[in-house]
């Protein structure tokens, strides 16, 4: 039920549940001493879902954590402001009273379900601890309530799984347990900090539906923090947009989406990955993969004999033409990353990977080459990784990073090397003046450009793009995709584009391959797959990404 009251009317009629007034927060010892949250004020009304949207580093998580004062007091400094909740200022209550509110009348769920549960305790123990702390229930009296809540969050066979440890649950189930833990004391306010970001699309949709249902049943308010605007549109009554520690826009969801007031919000909303690529004119085969298998042996027993295999990639065949992009889609664990690395020969595998160089007739079967024969071919196949923070060595300057591969293949003087690096940096729209800096001085998007430049300087034919935009903010994502498309047009590059984000895949790919459990479920032209998926799994995947709650 979206609220459509105007601000003054709301102030008169409804007492806010939580109200933050002029909160300013800075981190001690930060070099620039800029406050991370600046003069933020907002109310959460009873029974509403309020979404807090922003890109990484905008201060949305910090705002949420400061409500329960979870930030380490030796690191964070509250410069000014009040946080009113049920008649108290949470910034000034003592620790004992605050502990009664934490997990009692305010519950919280976090992004990473694996690290927010204690790996050494059963889920029953973790759930009943909260009941013991807040209601004084013993283990025996808490049990029925624990089972009831596990059922409410739709854990199958709840009664039998009380003794389960967190690693025995799937990611979605762990998040369900987290939700049960946060809600078991029936709080008035739930703070959900990116609760679905670490989950696959189909699971994401289930969790959101569950949250929505429980919110209705309990009549609680939800402060929902996310960077995913699709979720906001489905879930939230009101939305606030944060940028650089300030709230720059807030309002009723539909209004903000239809008539954004600030340029930044407009940019966020418009950051649609863009149109699909133009079809390629003539088909010259570049890569042909047949019956590729990457099996990892599982050794068990006293003698460590091979008992069975984990079939990460099982009997996959596909082909890729020059200048073409093949999108590989699948949920986590479907083997798409392993497939990419197998093609690059970073992992041992079986089958045929035939790679044809321009101007040569006979293809090279990469799997039959030894390391020495493989070396000259390596420069033609490069890879871009997901996490731009992990894929650049923090100890090398940008010029060293970009030039590293080139030094392997060509003997160049320092001046020539530098010229090539500058050229590569210009191609990815980086200022060559920055080449002597170190990666930690660059943003995520800039780092990804450095990684692309590092691959591009070798003049490769094929780029394996392993979720190149997943770790980036929406608006930066679009820039990187534009860049990749331009490079493809200019250099006739072929891409193996691995992603779980369907909208990005759609805008990049000529053809699409959907993977599940190491096998290909369906492959074909992008339009055909998106418009008429044949396989039930493809249908479920596409539906989860687009369906309303």
């Amino acid at each position, binding site marked *: 039920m979206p609220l459509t009251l105007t601000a003054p009317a709301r102030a008169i009629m409804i007492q806010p549940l939580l109200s933050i007034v002029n909160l300013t927060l800075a981190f001690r010892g930060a070099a620039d001493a800029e406050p991370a949250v600046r003069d933020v004020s907002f109310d959460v009304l009873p029974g509403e879902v309020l979404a807090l949207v922003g890109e990484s580093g905008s201060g949305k998580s910090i705002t949420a954590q400061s409500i329960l004062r979870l930030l380490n007091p030796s690191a964070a400094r509250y410069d000014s402001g009040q946080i009113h909740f049920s008649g108290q200022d949470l910034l000034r209550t003592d620790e004992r009273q605050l502990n009664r509110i934490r997990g009692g009348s305010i519950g919280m769920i976090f992004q990473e379900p694996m690290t927010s549960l204690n790996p050494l305790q059963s889920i029953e123990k973790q759930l009943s601890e909260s009941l013991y702390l807040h209601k004084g229930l013993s283990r025996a009296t808490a049990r029925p309530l624990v089972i009831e809540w596990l059922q409410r969050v739709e854990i199958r066979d709840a009664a039998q799984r009380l003794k389960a440890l967190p690693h025995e649950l799937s990611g979605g189930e762990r998040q369900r347990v987290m939700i049960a833990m946060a809600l078991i004391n029936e709080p008035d306010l739930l703070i959900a900090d990116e609760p679905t970001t670490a989950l696959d699309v189909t699971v994401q949709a289930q969790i959101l539906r569950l949250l929505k249902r429980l919110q209705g049943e309990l009549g609680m308010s939800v402060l929902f923090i996310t960077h995913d605007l699709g979720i906001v549109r489905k879930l939230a009554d009101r939305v606030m947009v944060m940028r650089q520690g300030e709230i720059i826009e807030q309002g009723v969801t539909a209004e903000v989406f239809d008539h954004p007031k600030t340029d930044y919000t407009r940019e966020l909303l418009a950051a649609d990955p863009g149109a699909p690529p133009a079809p390629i004119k003539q088909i010259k085969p570049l890569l042909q993969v047949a019956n590729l298998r990457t099996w990892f042996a599982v050794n068990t027993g006293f003698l460590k004999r091979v008992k069975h295999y984990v079939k990460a990639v099982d009997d996959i065949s596909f082909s890729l033409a020059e200048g073409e992009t093949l999108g590989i889609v699948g949920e986590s664990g479907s083997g798409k990353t392993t497939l990419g690395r197998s093609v690059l020969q*970073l992992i041992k595998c079986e089958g045929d990977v035939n790679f044809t160089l321009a101007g040569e007739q006979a293809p090279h079967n990469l799997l039959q080459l030894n390391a020495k024969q493989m070396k*000259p071919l390596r420069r033609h196949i490069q890879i871009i990784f997901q996490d731009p923070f992990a894929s*650049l*060595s923090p100890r090398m300057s940008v010029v060293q990073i970009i030039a590293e591969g080139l030094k392997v293949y060509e003997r160049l003087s320092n001046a020539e090397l530098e010229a090539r690096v500058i050229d590569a940096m210009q191609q990815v729209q980086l200022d060559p003046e920055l080449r002597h800096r170190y990666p*930690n*001085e660059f943003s995520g998007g800039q780092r990804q450009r450095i990684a692309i430049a*590092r691959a591009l300087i070798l003049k490769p034919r094929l780029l394996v793009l392993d979720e190149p935009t997943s770790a980036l903010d929406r608006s930066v994502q679009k820039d990187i995709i534009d860049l990749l498309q331009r490079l493809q047009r200019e250099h006739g590059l072929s891409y193996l584009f691995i992603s779980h984000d369907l909208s990005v895949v759609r805008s990049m790919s000529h053809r699409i391959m959907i993977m599940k459990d190491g096998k290909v479920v369906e492959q074909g032209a992008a339009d055909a797959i998106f418009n008429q998926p044949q396989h039930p799994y493809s249908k479920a995947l596409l539906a989860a990404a687009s369906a309303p709650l």
Partner: protein
Amino acid sequence: MSLITLSPINCERWQRFKNNRRGYYSLWIFLILFGLSLLAELIANNVPLVIQHEGEWYFPIVKEYSELDFGGDFDVVADYRDEYIADLINAEGWMLWPPIRFDYRAINYNLPGPAPSPPSVENWLGTDDLGRDILARLIYGFRISVMFGLFLTLATSVVGIAVGAIQGFYGGKVDLIGQRFLEVWSSVPTLFVLIIIASMVPPSFWILLGILLIFGWMALVGVVRAEFLRARNFEYVLAARSMGVSNKAIMWRHLLPNAMVATLTFIPFLLVGGVTSLTALDFLGFGLPPGSASLGEMVSQGKNNLHAPWIGLSVFVVLSLLLTLLVFVGEAVRDAVDPNRTR
């Protein structure tokens, strides 16, 4: 770019190290003491630094002179502390003595009473039970202990890092065999092996170093191996492999810097361990040959001569000062390079 330019990470680390006042000052005190002990021959020696005699210069530290050179009666090495020779020289010139007129093995035959004799103007910290000057022995002993520790640390680190790197990088069978060998090797009782070897060859500085190296290089293997195992699947390492960079270059350029953080935090403590093991061996009598300046031998003398507390006290003070300084430096290094504090 010059060699001394620190990367921003190292700059930050150096700043953090400097901010730890205790460790920073400890480092300076240690460096000054070590520097002074390197000049031991100029500070404590039983020959003068410079002599001018009948218009000619003599440098007894670098060259032995006969009594005849100074107008003496016999062709023997001049004993400058002998009053007869001293008078001969002073009559026709002068000589410049170091502040302490004994080296580590010079025996003072002019003691007022039986050795060990208490502190006096001549022997500032007294003498041991053979009449040798304690301060001189401390200075030489400090030097040999620190040198031994440094060499041992350097050697064990090089071997340990190399073995750990190979095990961690190649993994699989290499790692498995290496680990089993390590387990067997580290259970060899070093002390007994040392006693056996000491009964066959007289242990010198280098032989002791070699034996302790053979049985002590495992200290860093575990850490380096773990770091290499972890880092070999880092994305920038995979990127380098897909660019065709050779294994050697990957290990050297990408993996070793990662392992160095963990290694650096260990090295000061290895140094402490090296100093301690030499002292312990000397104390037990299985260490350096008799007569060497060694802190352990002095500890043993202190124990045997409880009626002469200046022996035990002075060596105790020096040893504990040395170890404390090294531990403080080590702590500061560890805090400065701790990866948890480097983002």
